[in-house]
């Protein structure tokens, strides 16, 4: 049993760089989102998606020719996973109806294996977009209330700004790299919110504890100590989560590829933001020992804790 080495890294001292870095990330993300936008999947735009498997390698040009001959507008064809599988995506079009997919299946011939067909009507796509935005908003509000209730409003604002930071940057990377954004990616982003928050809460918990248990009143020292004390946990959990996500990313198949990617990006960003963004925020909002001193009733409860 060796004495424990708690690192003494001056996180807050490097705050200025972190703030500049974060602002830059957020700015570039917003820039990319407003210029490039997200490459939305048919879940949100509406349209038809077909995944088709062939017995042997297939030439994309042939498929494209067949489709353009039949006058399907805005058809994009690409390989999906291997050269024996293709993914056809069609924009919602004038003749669009659920029957469209049947027509294409007919066109491609009988020896193909229809692996997946997705048709989303324009109205459903619109609803999913709205609902998705709302879901994100509700999750943030629910968390804001819980954290404000359990901690203090400054902590709530700190954690929310870290979350918004994570979401914007993750979306920004998806926009910058033009990776398709579909329903499962949205689910991943919501999971990122949960994960990043998990990290932030652990740090906050320690900051609160340190404020209450030490004589120090200097918030910078206290926050630094808390970040150092939780550092090995933060890294450990990130590593275990990243390990399983890498397994999903490489082995989980094409369908959850982007889902795993969003989580991978989100976990890395979330780990960074819980160290820098959240704590910088509460520091900037001027957290002090007095803010965390419990009222009389609460202090009894705390005394009663083992």
């Amino acid at each position, binding site marked *: *049993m060796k004495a*424990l080495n*708690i690192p003494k890294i001056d996180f807050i001292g490097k705050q200025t760089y972190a703030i500049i870095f974060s602002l830059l990330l957020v700015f570039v993300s917003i820039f990319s989102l407003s210029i490039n936008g997200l490459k939305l999947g048919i879940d949100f735009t509406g349209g038809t998606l077909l995944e088709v498997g062939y017995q042997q390698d297939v030439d994309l040009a042939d498929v494209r020719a067949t489709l353009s001959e039949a006058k399907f507008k805005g058809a994009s064809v690409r390989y999906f996973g291997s050269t024996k599988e293709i993914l056809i995506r069609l924009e919602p*079009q*004038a*003749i*669009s*109806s*659920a029957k469209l*997919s049947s027509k294409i299946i007919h066109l491609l011939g009988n020896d193909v*294996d229809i*692996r*997946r*067909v997705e*048709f*989303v*009507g*324009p*109205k*459903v796509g619109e609803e999913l977009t709205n*609902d*998705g935005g709302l*879901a994100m908003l*509700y999750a943030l509000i*629910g*968390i804001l209330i*819980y954290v404000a209730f359990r901690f203090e409003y400054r902590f709530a604002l700190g954690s929310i700004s870290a979350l918004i930071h994570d979401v914007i940057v993750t979306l920004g990377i998806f926009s910058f790299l033009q990776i398709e954004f579909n*329903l*499962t990616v*949205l*689910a991943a982003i*919501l*999971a990122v919110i*949960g*994960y990043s928050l*998990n*990290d932030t*809460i*652990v740090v906050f*918990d*320690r900051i609160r*504890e340190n404020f209450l248990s030490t004589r120090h009143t200097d918030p910078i020292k206290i926050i630094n100590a808390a970040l150092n*004390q939780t550092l090995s*946990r933060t890294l*450990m*959990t990130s590593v*275990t*989560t990243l*390990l*399983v996500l890498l*397994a*999903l990313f*490489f*082995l*989980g198949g094409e*369908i*959850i590829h982007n*889902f795993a990617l969003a*989580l991978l990006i989100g976990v890395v960003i979330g780990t960074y933001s819980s160290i820098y963004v959240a704590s910088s925020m509460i520091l900037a909002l001027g957290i002090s020992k007095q803010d965390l001193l419990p009222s009389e009733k609460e202090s009894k409860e705390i005394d009663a804790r*083992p």
Partner: protein
Amino acid sequence: MNQYSGLKNALIAFCLLLSILYALPNIFGSDLAVQVSSAGGKLVTESDLDKITDTLKSKDVNYKSVALSNRHILVRFDNNASQLSAKDILKTSLGRNYVVALNLAPSVPLWLSNLGGKAMSLGLDLRGGVHFLLEVDMYAVMAVSIDKHYNELRTLLRAERLYKSIKKEGERIVIRLKTVDTRAKALKIIKSELSDLVVLETNNQDKLMIYLAISNNAQKNAKKNALKQNITTLRNRVDELGVAEPIIQQQGLERIVVQLPGVQDTARAKEILGAVATLEFRLVDERNDPQTAIQSGRMPIGSKLYYFKDGRPLLLKNRVIATGENITGAASGVDDRSAPMVNITLDSIGGRAMLDTTKKYLKHRIAVVFIENKVETIIKNGKTIKKRTTTKDIINAATIEGVFSSRFQITGIDSGREARNLALLLRAGSLSTPIEIIEERTIGPSLGADNIEKGVLSVIIGFMLVLIFMAMRYRVFGLVANIALTLNLAMIVAVLSLLQATLTLPGIAGIVLTVGMAVDANVLIFERIKEELGSNSDIQKAISSGYDKALLTIADANITTLIAALVLFSFGTGPIKGFAITLSIGIITSMFTAIIVSRAIINKIYGGKKHQELSI
């Protein structure tokens, strides 16, 4: 110190054993099976079972086992070939009253299923199948409702000779009275006989005019009924498709979810589900000649021109005797002289109307008009609009040979094939409102199998990586965390199986993610114990305060994640819901295993003894 009471240990062990027991059904795999159930929602019986076994034996089809539950009969097979041939054989021998469908039946041992053990139900993305979201065209429903009220109102007021004119204006009915003093009488009749109509207040001071619309309540009811009727009709149509475990569910106020696991021929499924048709029985106007009407371009009062599919015209009266809604059954057959015919059964409303009509109009003809409504959503100038097309064809015109009400036959049909076709159309026509497929998700069986394989592989690999990492980093404590993690996995599977929640590919991703995050609680605890060891030499105290101090942090962190998961669940459609379910269950079970179970094991190893060192 650091010892749980015997009772607490026993309780923990009991919980874990229970979890393992109910996770167990999932390891047995599944059998290829054919499922036979009754089409009308009736129960299948022992005699059906005997019939099935006899049929299969006589055709030399080998089966593994056959079992009867109150809902259906499951026949299990060793290979795909005998499964498929058995399906065809049974389908032809059992006839239309039974639904014969291919299925995958979990092969859970009898003792386990007697204890209530069930395997997880797999989502469409894992087993293959079709998911449709259908929307009922409520605009058309309201149009039909206005028509119906208009016809009734006209009949009523005409009997009293009250109106000068009556017409439909969009969603309103406008009446012009003959004299002002009949207004009160007209309103009284409307109020007592047609309570679904409300009088609209308008700026028009003309006392001769009455403006009517359908009340909100009645509109709501009409929509509700339309949805219900569609669901019923869809159930019958799905029965015709032969699907083992179909889901047909209302979603919201105007939508229906249809999930057909295992269906591969989606084109046929769409054809059968999407065919939107209705029927009208109308009297033929025998007094006027259709050719004269065509040449003059003027329709006789109360009649309108309709055509057969081959172009022959016929004048039909405007009043509808009965619609497809009133048809409860239509079957083709042969009469006593072996001529093809169609047997029709109407409900009581249709029967009464038919009785009135046939009494009055013996030897007249009744025509059956088949009306097909197609709704397509198209994009025009960047706006989505609905394009409606309606085609009306006369499919039959038969002379009334006697007085009848709700049961009658149409004879004089050329061939048996035509009779079958007519019966099919009549049945199809009993779905009265247009529905449109607004979302479709089909997963082919090969992709489903792929998804399971990849999902399971990524769970195993991810899981192993975490186990190795934890053991390396925390040694004995790491191994304890690993046991807790393994038990957590068993608990998630057990809870999913017991709830019969549907496992989807994103659901598997949720499990994988939970594995990664579940160790977080143990990491928090172990790091805390390490810290305590640094400042305190008593290892027993370090263990206990490590657990205690980490507890609130873990709870806070997990509750916030749970909030995100619950939002996901309430927002989610299919795949996202699956992810949210496994994530939520995983968070809750991981709190139990990572805190309580790991503590129990640590207590067993270190509790109450003098140790110099912790392997952490």
